[in-house]
């Protein structure tokens, strides 16, 4: 019987987090305070974060001990299994071995608790009694509610109202764990009350929810704010994923060629990838790929030609329906081209060409998620589908090149509380429209010099 899972014993869980800041070949530009234009300092952060987490945020120590109290909670679901995706390999019929870290085993169903638990512990150790945060669709709010309950902290979650109304099960998860979830804008803050006075039916936004969560703890010595992604200390906590994967791969004498993760704010991607980024920095030949959402139209509507598979023109020419590898919306919208919630560490590594970013549109990603669910069984979170789309792309490239490849990716969470997204896809609600003729003409011009299949 072939092996499917590589497991670590509880005592084999990593005892330290890995801090990439110790090994970056060029220093990262620190985030700037929007008011002063100067790098954020500890005093700036002390208004909303406890000093022990600020120290981690600013640290350049390579290894940071994971407190026993945090490990005791993590081993409820960690070490997470490393799976071999035999069924997907067979479906793709490509010369690849595909491994994935299954982060859907946590009680909240995703990688988020890896940092939620750590943050709850550090806040408790600092003497904090309550934590506030914002959440969109509820993954982060759920994880933090769970973690706060573990350490006896009050948790207050401001959930964007449109998501609050759409996702009652996420709210119920938070409440089951003892968290309090408020639809934002809410009556709990001056910010919320003002917006509701102006627009009683406001559907809310992430910006409003952030403002409410911060206002909720400002000027309260016993309250602090928490964030589920983007910040250095959050990515640090997530490196337990990649460190476990390295131990598991060593157990089966396997060496990976490509490491893939989906990247929204960057925390799950960083968690898997950063320990391997270190290997790459020190000379290992390995590709590190961040799969992002994009809105490039489905390729099947462009002229059929050979084109590069990526914006960087690094792939062999692939025969496909193409709009030109450089298809982007008009420059006026370039400001929205990349989601500006990406972690600075990841952005820096992309800029330094240590990490490659690839974009996948939602039809591609849902198609990948469905193919995954129908071969491997587990239903991925829609975010995870971006990573799977990249895995499939990489596997098909290996097939095209006739070259064996070992792929590792982060299965960042399950989609069992997000099935409405799959319903939208399966009922055809997520369809492209016909491109205007001028866009098709532009695409034809771009690829006119390329060979035709």
């Amino acid at each position, binding site marked *: 019987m072939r092996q499917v899972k590589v497991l670590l014993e509880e005592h084999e869980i990593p005892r330290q987090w890995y801090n990439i800041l110790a090994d970056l070949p060029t220093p990262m530009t620190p985030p700037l305070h929007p008011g002063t234009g100067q790098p954020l300092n500890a005093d700036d952060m002390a*208004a909303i974060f406890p000093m022990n987490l600020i120290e981690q945020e600013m640290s350049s120590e390579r290894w940071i001990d994971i407190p026993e109290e945090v490990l005791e909670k993590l081993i409820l679901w960690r070490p997470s299994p490393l799976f071999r995706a035999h069924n997907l390999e067979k479906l793709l019929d490509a010369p690849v071995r595909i491994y994935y870290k299954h982060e859907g085993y946590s009680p909240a169903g995703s990688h988020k608790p890896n940092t939620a638990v750590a943050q709850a512990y550090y806040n408790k150790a600092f003497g904090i009694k309550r934590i506030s945060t914002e959440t969109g669709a509820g993954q982060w709010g759920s994880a933090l509610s769970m973690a706060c309950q573990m350490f006896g902290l009050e948790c207050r979650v401001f959930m964007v109202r449109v998501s609050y109304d759409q996702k009652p099960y996420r709210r119920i998860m938070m409440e089951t764990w003892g968290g309090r979830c408020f639809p934002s804008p809410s009556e709990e803050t001056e910010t919320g009350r003002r917006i509701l006075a102006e627009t009683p039916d406001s559907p809310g*936004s992430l910006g409003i929810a*952030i403002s409410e969560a911060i206002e909720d703890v400002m000027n309260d010595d016993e309250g602090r704010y928490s964030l589920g992604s983007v910040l250095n200390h959050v990515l640090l906590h997530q490196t337990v994923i990649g460190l476990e994967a390295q131990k598991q791969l060593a157990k089966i004498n396997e060496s990976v060629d490509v490491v893939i993760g989906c990247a929204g704010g960057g925390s799950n991607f960083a968690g898997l990838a950063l320990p391997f980024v270190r290997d790459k920095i020190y000379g290992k030949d390995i590709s590190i790929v961040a799969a992002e959402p994009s*809105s490039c139209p489905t390729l099947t509507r462009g002229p059929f030609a050979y084109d590069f598979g990526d914006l960087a023109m690094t792939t062999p020419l692939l025969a496909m329906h193409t709009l030109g590898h450089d298809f982007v919306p008009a420059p006026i*919208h370039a400001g929205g081209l990349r989601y500006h919630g990406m972690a600075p560490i990841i952005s820096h590594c992309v800029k330094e060409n240590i990490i490659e970013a690839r974009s996948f549109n939602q039809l591609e990603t849902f198609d990948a998620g469905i193919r995954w669910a129908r071969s491997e069984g587990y239903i991925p979170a829609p975010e995870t589908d971006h990573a799977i789309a990249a895995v499939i792309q990489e596997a098909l490239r290996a097939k095209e090149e006739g070259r064996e490849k070992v792929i590792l990716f982060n299965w960042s969470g399950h989609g069992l509380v997000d099935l409405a*997204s799959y319903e939208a896809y399966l009922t055809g609600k*997520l369809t492209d*429209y016909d491109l*205007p003729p001028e866009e098709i003409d532009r695409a034809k011009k771009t690829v006119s010099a390329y060979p035709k299949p």
Partner: protein
Amino acid sequence: MTIYDDREIRCPKLGGQITFNYCRREGGDIPCPRIIYCWHPFLPVEDYLRERLSSDQWDRCFGRQPQGRIERIFETVDRLKKSP
């Protein structure tokens, strides 16, 4: 309501399905700055917005780079520190 209002898309900021109606109201009287980038494969969103937004609204929405999460957080902290 407009003809596109019930079309759905997955929002990369919220992590869930939302309608076009939400996207065009996300900023209060202006849309989410990502609206054209997110929706252009699905409907003629730029034309739609140019017909409906004033030049001031257009500039406020698309005239500058959207704020990153960290910038937004510390701008909020500053604003709250200064308010009475």
